[in-house]
């Protein structure tokens, strides 16, 4: 009986104390969570910061290593240089394992801290080259 009352008092004082602590909620649109350094979010294609040209050398290693085969690469030959025509990442298939990033010899494709990947239409879930380049700006 005494024990029961003691337990009750403990429980009630705990909830009372909780009432005066600051909530841990992040008020999303106004506040944002900072992803960690190694967070694997949406993909990006980086440019060379010095020349401003694309880093990607179209080796297609990322497309080959991808376990879910969500990267589609189409290249063409333009005056002895390989040029990427299509670089699509299908987010509906991607499992964000980061193998593409790991295998890339020139560190062109990277996974960023972007985590907002909600779209209204299915075609939007496929990221095209210009989206990836936009994501890579400043990285």
């Amino acid at each position: 009986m005494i024990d029961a009352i003691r337990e009750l008092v403990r429980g009630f004082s705990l909830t009372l104390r909780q009432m005066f602590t600051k909530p841990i909620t992040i008020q999303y649109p106004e506040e944002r969570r900072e992803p960690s350094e190694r967070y694997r979010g949406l993909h990006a294609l980086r440019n060379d910061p010095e020349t401003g040209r694309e880093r990607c050398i179209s080796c297609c290693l990322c497309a080959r290593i991808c376990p879910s085969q969500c990267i589609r690469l189409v290249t063409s030959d333009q005056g002895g240089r390989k040029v990427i025509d299509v670089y699509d990442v299908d987010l509906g298939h991607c499992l964000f394992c980061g193998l593409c990033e790991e295998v890339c010899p020139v560190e062109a494709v990277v996974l960023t801290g972007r985590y907002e990947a909600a779209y209204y239409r299915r075609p939007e879930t496929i990221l095209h080259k210009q989206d990836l380049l936009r994501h890579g700006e400043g990285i």
Partner: protein
Amino acid sequence: MTPVDLLFVLLKILVVLLLIPVVVGFCTLAERKILGRIQIRYGPNRAGPFGLLQWMADAVKLITKEYLVPGEADKFLFVIAPILTLAPALAVFALIPFGKGMHITDVNVGVLMLVAVSSLGIYGVIFGGWASNSKYSLLGALRSAAQMISYELAMGLSLVAVVMMAGTMSLVGIVEAQKGLWFLVLQPVGFLVFCIAGIAETNRLPFDMPEAEGDLGAGYHTEYSAMGFGLFQLAEYASIITICALITTFFLGGWSGPWAGALMGLPSLGYFILKTAFFVFVFIWIRGTLPRVRYDQLMAFGWKVLLPLALLNILLVAGVVAMGWAQ
């Protein structure tokens, strides 16, 4: 009764009836906010400043939704059940003295009428559960019936002691009788019994067996949608406020307090609201702290602990009154 008197009474009823949904609205908001803070989150804070308009948004949503009646349901009972629950919950407010001279009626058998009217609310719950033609609803209704009958006994018996000490059944008279010392001090056991029975009576956690969302999927109002559900919700919160107001009236001296009669009795209304609000907070606090009890525990507690305690309380209070110590 002259027509003017009648008009005045009707006006008082109208004011109370219009105020209750608003108070209930803020009560639901307060509940969600306080529960949120207990669980280290904010609770609703998007609609209006600090989420103060959330209850209005909820109400609009409930009113505009489609009212679905299950095909196998008993249509007539299904529709009237929420009304049957709400009407007694509102009717009780006619008896409560909100402040000095602020009450709709002063019935000389107030306590009796109160117990009688508040017991009627259970019919709505039983009809609602039965008419839905769903297992969960029926189970919820059955549990509710058993629980309310068990706890009504303890509740009624704790009121017997109050009536003995006050020497009157009128709620106004009971408040007057506590001018000197609150009944909370004179009969703490009765106070505890009344509070616990009150929580069980309003189907609140830790005694929310009729709803028990985990095992019954909301119990008697599983099949209700739109305003049918809204009315059940309104009735539930209205009865919480009622029980808190009754605890205040019976054990905390109602509207009494220093300078209660000054300024046309406005301080008395303030005292009443303050005391009632405190108990509403305690109810929410209890909900945020205690887990739901098992059904057999609930029954055992009601019959083997609460009822004997209430009887013991009557015995003690009867002794005190007979010896003339109450004065």
